[in-house]
Every structure is written in structure tokens, then in C-alpha cells.
């Protein structure tokens, strides 16, 4: 099990737009990534319903976990995505 912790950089947290971009990236990775808010149960990162229900706010630390071949690379790129301000990238 590979794990990464990341502090969410999006200015207003994982609301619809950044959550959708994260879910898209997680789905494209082809890996079964899970995401948890510190202290909570991990949920499926490929489900927009699950990610929106987590209600991740700006500055929250989340934990990404995944298993198997490609997990490291997938988690690295997802971590980078979450640390960035995904709303700033929108133009």
C-alpha cells in the first residue's frame, strides 16, 4: 500500500470544478486510488459523489492510497494536482 499526504491547495477546497478534475485524473490513472480526510474512512477517488461528499476544504490534509504497479507514479501526479490551486488554472 502506497500512501501520500497532501494539503489541498485549491482556494475554496474540492468543490465541483477541482473535484471533477481530480476524479478525472484518478480515473485516467487506471489505478484504484482512495482518498481520505485526516481521521476519516477512505473513499473511492474515481467517484465524484464520494469526493464531493468528503467536503474537503482549502488547507485540509488528505491521504491518498493505492496499491500495485504504477501506484507511486499515479499518487505522485495526483498529489501535485491536489497541492495546486486548481481554480487558478481555470481561465
Amino acid at each position, binding site marked *: 500500500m502506497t500512501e501520500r499526504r497532501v494539503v489541498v491547495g485549491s482556494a*475554496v477546497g474540492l*468543490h*465541483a*470544478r477541482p*473535484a*471533477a*478534475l481530480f476524479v*478525472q485524473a484518478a480515473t485516467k490513472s487506471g489505478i484504484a486510488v482512495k482518498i481520505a480526510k485526516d481521521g476519516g474512512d477512505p473513499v473511492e477517488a474515481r*467517484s*465524484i*459523489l464520494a469526493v*464531493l*461528499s468528503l*467536503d474537503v476544504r482549502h488547507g485540509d490534509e488528505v491521504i491518498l492510497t493505492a496499491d500495485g504497479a504504477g501506484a507511486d507514479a499515479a499518487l505522485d501526479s495526483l498529489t501535485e494536482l491536489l497541492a495546486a490551486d486548481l481554480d487558478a488554472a*481555470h481561465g
Partner: protein
Amino acid sequence: MTLTVVSPVAGAAIPLGAVPDPVFSAALVGPGTAVDPVRAEGTVVSPIAGQVAKLHPHAFVIVGDRGRGVLVHLGIDTVQLGGEGFTLMVDEGDDVDAGTPVVWWDPRQVESGGRSPICPVVALDAPAGEITGRADGHHVAAGDVLFVWE
């Protein structure tokens, strides 16, 4: 069993592709449709029967049978308003019916703040092919059928 999704607000039903936000319009949040609301204050109603899974002033998710969740997002970039101009009428965890009032707002207020009041209504995690019978191109009243989730 098919799930009938009703319009949360009165207005013109428009395709998701017409929503002025690249993530909603590309159906990245999920498939569905959108409503360009009548410019008048009023209540926003639940699109399906179920439980209020997530409630923000500007957006909410109702989860119905088989765990299917529908997101209603009131306007674009309205998360930036921090709840100003929206009044909650239910709590997270409440059970609601299709048509139960959830939030009160004024789309004119959203618009005068420089944001679009267009409301995407999205079937979360639904394969695109499961969404049919869209009311796009028609005027809908709150509670009228907006689309069907097979």
C-alpha cells in the same frame, strides 16, 4: 428502476454544453442538463427523493435509491460567495422528496455580482448513456421532469 429527475428551479432547460464553465460543460462533473433560471427570488427544490448527502448554500447533493446522487449547483463560481444570498431550508442528513424546498436564493443577486446564475443539474458517476429524456429547449417549472436516469 429509472429515476426521474425534476427541475430544481423554473427556467429554460439548456444543454450542459451551454454552461459557461469548461468543467461542467464538458460533463466532467457528470452528465445531466442545466437550467437558466427565471430571474426572480424563490425556492430551489430537490430534484429527486432521497437524503441530503451534502449541503452547501450554493450547491447540494441528494442521494436517492441505489445510491444514485444528483448534484444541483446554483450558478457558476458561486462557491466564492461564501453563502451570502442563500438561505438553507433543510439540514444535511434530512430525507426529502422530489419537490421539497432545499434553499432560497435570488438569481438576480448572483448575476449582479458578475456570476452566471445558470444551474447545472448533474447525475454523479452516471455513464452518459444512462441519462435520457432531457427537457433541453423547453421552459420548465420547478418540479417538472428535467431528465431521466435509467
